């Protein structure tokens, strides 16, 4: 990274405000880094150079006019699941390879309105279904800390872009861990907000009772700045929750003195790499030294989260993805013989293996005679999981543990073994089932690979999560580390 540009967003914002550099200069800098480094990462599906420079020029004009906000002129990378008017929105699928969105997602509008500059659209697991970014139609994304390893998923392109310094900020979406898990494996910070906090209008649906968009950045303080722009009521998303506006940077200075942190024993089981457990405990000890009070708690139903998730998510996916029919937009097979052939071949050729697997599982779970045994049962387990968290929050302010059971795994390890792949989300899916907010922040390193600390908050308690992450980042340098190949 050039010495003339800091990496943190607060510093970039200060530099823009002071006139040290313009948004056009900053945007050129990131576009040059993408041109030089993205071949080794494959974080971006589409780079929008000209469009970004035009946005940057507009941001500079706005600053000159005295109407700039904190993030005006700051570049960001946008997960290719958010619709962007006039720009291909592929969801990393052959199905949408030719899809140019005719409208903007609510989040896209929010970021535009605040004057951010979209550098491009990031790689991801196809339709956000995956934990390794290996199911992308556009090839896998490499982990900037070790190109032979996965960046996590599904927001792996966004996480890798931030980690490699190819964007200071990125958007992500999290259905079962898709913001937190790649943030952990790439050594950055990522926040999955409370269900309903960020509008999903224009965010391509995967599992609608679980999906939630959120920010990804190097630090908790940067996440707070970005959440300020992304959050808010939108009547076009029927699950959007109407609440008074909050400034998520306000609680950052609160610290953790007296904060009650519960540590669930179920998050330190046999599946956990013990050295990851040690790294997480060391980070928690830092918080304890700053006044937090740690206690062991139990989330007895936590081990059932993955099984329940892998019924509910595929069931909802099979319903949501029925819209892709080869008729109105997206991929259509060549020379269909009749309407059924058109549907079946367009879908079979347009979707990749993992998406088809999930559609089949979901279709089965919802089919006549199996609904009660699978979908209804999973929704009942879901209530038990939510009630576990509610009981825990009677006695603690937030819950902490590892984000993932191990650091980034080697590419190709789990592609033919879906169940093993699913287990990399063992600590993250319960949060989505309950609709809670959760943050992953860097806890440290193991053999040169990042380890994530997950903090889970009560509903709409993002402020406290970010304050806790920020407190850790006052005494830890893990979030400032830069992958050697991208220094």
């Amino acid at each position, binding site marked *: 990274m050039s010495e003339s540009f800091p990496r943190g967003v607060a510093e970039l914002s200060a530099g823009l405000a002071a006139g040290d550099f313009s948004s056009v200069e900053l945007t050129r800098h990131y576009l040059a880094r993408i041109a030089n480094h993205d071949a080794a990462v494959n974080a971006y599906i589409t780079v929008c150079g000209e469009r970004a420079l035009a946005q940057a020029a507009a941001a500079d004009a706005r600053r000159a006019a005295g109407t700039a906000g904190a993030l005006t002129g700051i570049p960001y990378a946008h997960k290719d699941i958010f619709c962007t008017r006039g720009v291909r929105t592929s969801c990393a699928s052959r199905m949408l390879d*030719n899809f*140019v969105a*005719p409208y903007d997602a609510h989040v896209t509008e929010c970021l535009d309105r605040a004057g951010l500059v979209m550098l491009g659209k990031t790689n991801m697991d196809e339709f956000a279904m995956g934990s390794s970014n290996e199911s992308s139609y556009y090839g896998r994304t490499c982990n900037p800390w070790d190109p032979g390893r996965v960046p996590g998923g599904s927001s792996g392109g966004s996480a890798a872009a931030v980690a490699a310094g190819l964007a200071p900020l990125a958007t992500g979406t999290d259905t079962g861990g898709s913001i937190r898990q790649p943030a952990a494996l790439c050594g950055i910070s990522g926040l999955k907000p*409370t*269900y*309903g906090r960020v509008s999903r209008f224009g965010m391509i649906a995967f599992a609608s*009772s*679980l999906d939630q968009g959120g920010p990804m950045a190097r630090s908790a303080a940067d996440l707070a700045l970005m959440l300020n722009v992304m959050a808010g009521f939108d009547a076009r998303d*029927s*699950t959007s*929750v109407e609440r008074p506006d909050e400034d998520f940077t306000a609680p950052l200075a609160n610290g953790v003195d007296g904060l009650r942190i519960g540590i669930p024993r179920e998050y330190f089981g046999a599946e956990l790499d013990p050295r990851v457990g040690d790294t997480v405990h060391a980070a928690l000890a830092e918080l304890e030294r700053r006044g937090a009070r740690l206690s062991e708690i139990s989330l007895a*139903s936590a081990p*059932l989260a*993955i*099984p*329940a998730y*892998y*019924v509910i998510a595929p069931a909802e996916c099979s319903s949501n993805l*029925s819209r892709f*029919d*080869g*008729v*109105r*937009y*997206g991929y*259509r097979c060549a020379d*269909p013989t*009749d*309407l059924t*052939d*058109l549907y*079946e*071949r367009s*879908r*079979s050729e347009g*979707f990749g293996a993992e998406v*088809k*697997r999930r*559609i*089949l*599982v979901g*279709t*089965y779970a919802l*089919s006549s005679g199996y609904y009660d045994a699978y979908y*209804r*049962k*999973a*929704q*009942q*387990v879901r*209530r*038990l999981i*939510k009630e576990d968290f509610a009981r825990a929050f009677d006695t603690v302010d937030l819950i902490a543990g590892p984000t993932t059971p191990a650091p980034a795994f080697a590419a190709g390890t789990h592609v033919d073994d*879906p*169940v093993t792949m*699913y287990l990399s989300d063992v600590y993250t899916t319960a949060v989505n*089932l309950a*609709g*809670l907010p959760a943050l992953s922040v860097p806890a440290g390193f193991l053999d040169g690979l990042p380890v994530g600390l997950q903090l889970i908050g009560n*509903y709409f308690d993002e402020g406290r999560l970010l304050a806790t992450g920020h407190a850790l980042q006052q005494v830890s340098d893990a979030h400032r580390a830069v992958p050697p190949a991208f220094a």
Partner: protein
Amino acid sequence: MSISAVDVRAIARLARLSIAESDIPVYAGQLSSILDFVAQMNAVDTAGVEPLAHPLELSARLRADTVTETDRRTELQAGAPETADGLYLVPQVIE
């Protein structure tokens, strides 16, 4: 729970997916292992537990039944595989 080749064909038909014959045993094996895995849920007694559909248990907001969208047909059809006179074209359905 073992999923047979017949099951895979039936589910694929419901899902409007055509699966190559050579891939059917692979899908049968993977679907069986996924369903065996999720069967862990059966270890817990959920008798009398109300299913949870919405994490915040809020019901969907209602809005006034008024037109909120303008006509953008041309723009929306620009990405369609095949259209004519503002209509989507598909292979002939009725002889």
